[in-house]
């Protein structure tokens, strides 16, 4: 995925998971939706690094890492109670205002492209304090000046109840943070350049004078992902786990 000439002892997925784990930090509860192996790796890594059973990690696709017993609504009720601190969203389009589009491009009544739909984003984006946007494809097709359909807006008027929203956008090229209603380039992944990010981003963003390289995973982080996280992940993402972390080992 990365065009890199640097010799590395980690895979792209490990770098991304490591970056996201740092964004998660010391949360109480991270929930990860379906088909999100890298955020799931990140959440389990954050937990392994904190070493105090924090954060609690809910993998919604899992039976084991999923405590919900009150039906499909419990995730949303739980978020409404303020008990979900970190969630991940993506978008067919993401714009510079942090708006995400999971519905369609073109005219809503006659869409050019139809995406699956908004899922829970039109609610969770407002009530989960730390929403991390994750979209590996970093292109002018996905990162646009303005989305064609707002599944959920990046910011709201001051009088709109909102206890959550986007804090960062992680792509295959870089990390943006989100503050004051705009993205700011926080770091560029090893093997990528600021110029490349500018060229492939459809929206305006704040550009610091110096943009650091995304820190690479420490040997300890790599060890935790491979030895502690991978066996837990295998239940939900067997193919991803085998491909990224090698053949399954027995669970810790």
């Amino acid at each position, binding site marked *: 995925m990365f065009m890199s000439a640097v010799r590395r002892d980690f895979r792209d997925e490990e770098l991304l998971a490591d970056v996201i784990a740092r964004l998660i930090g010391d949360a109480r509860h991270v929930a990860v939706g379906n088909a999100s192996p890298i955020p799931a790796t990140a959440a389990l890594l954050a937990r392994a690094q904190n070493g105090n059973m924090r954060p609690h990690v809910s993998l919604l696709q899992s039976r084991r890492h999923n405590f919900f017993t009150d039906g499909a609504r419990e995730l949303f009720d739980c978020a409404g109670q303020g008990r979900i601190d970190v969630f991940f969203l993506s978008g067919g389009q993401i714009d510079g205002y942090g708006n995400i589009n999971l519905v369609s491009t073109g005219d809503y009544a006659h869409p050019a492209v139809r995406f699956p739909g908004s*899922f829970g984003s039109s*609610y969770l984006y407002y009530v989960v304090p730390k929403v991390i946007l994750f979209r590996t494809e970093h292109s002018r097709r996905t990162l646009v000046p303005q989305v064609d359909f707002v599944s959920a807006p990046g910011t709201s008027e001051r009088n709109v109840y909102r206890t959550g929203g986007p804090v960062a956008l992680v792509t295959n090229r870089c990390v943006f943070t989100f503050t004051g209603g705009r993205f700011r380039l926080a770091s560029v992944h090893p093997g990528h350049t600021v110029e490349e990010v500018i060229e492939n981003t459809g929206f305006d963003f704040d550009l610091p004078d110096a943009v650091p390289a995304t820190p690479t995973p420490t040997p300890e982080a790599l060890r935790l992902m491979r030895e502690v996280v991978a066996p837990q992940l295998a239940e939900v993402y067997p193919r991803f786990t085998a491909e990224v972390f090698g053949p399954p080992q027995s669970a810790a």
Partner: protein
Amino acid sequence: MPCANVTIMFQAAKSLDEALAAIDDATTLVVPREVSGVPMAATRALIRRGVKNLHLIALPTSSLQADLLIGAGCVATLETSAVSLGEFGPAPRFVAAATSGAIRIKDTTCPALHAALQAAEKGVPFMPLRGLIGSDVLKYRNDWKVVNNPFGNDDPIVLLPAIHPKVALFHAPMADRCGNVWIGRQRELATMAHAAAATIVTVERLHDGNLLEDPILAAGTLPAFYVDAIAIAERGAWPLGLPDHYELDAEHLSLYARMAASAQGFAEYLDKYVYERRAA
């Protein structure tokens, strides 16, 4: 007296087609998300019968079931927060119908569907929900209203009208001969049944004894009182999975995704995997 509580509405387990009789053309039909027990055998039976103009509510999302019904021309309106085949890619017939305008789509978001069905469950005309304000989901739903929270101060909040489906349809691990259905953790199935005028269930198997008489089983049981018809359909969620019972059939879903990518391939899929079972 094993069925002390059985209601006269319940009739003993029926043939699949008999059980589905209440689903007429234009029925407002609510069905569950992929992990909650998707009645795929029943869905194929409905397609064979040629049901038309359904108002399909997928609580809160759908995958193969909505795609099949849409592709087979059974759906007039789809109300859901997403349709996708997940790791098998986009739902091709849904995408085709959405872009061609063949179906009307009422886009929503997961908790809004849950809340609107809970409103019907509770007999109230609406439920409030946070979020949504400033989204285009709200903008295109002129059946929703924004009011000022009367307990707040300049605090707009969305009100969602109750959804009253005519029929709730789902697949569950087991039912007993009294008509009680074990739904386990999938509590939204109870809400669906409470909200709908009639509930039709397919099950893997019959349970001997009365589910309500064992406190442990009763905790996960939808009482017969809410259930109008039950049919036994072994592996009735196939090719989807039934959690804790069987996995989804990945090979078949890959095949479906490939075949349904074109209208012609989808027609061949129906011939092979839906209509061939007409005699079953």
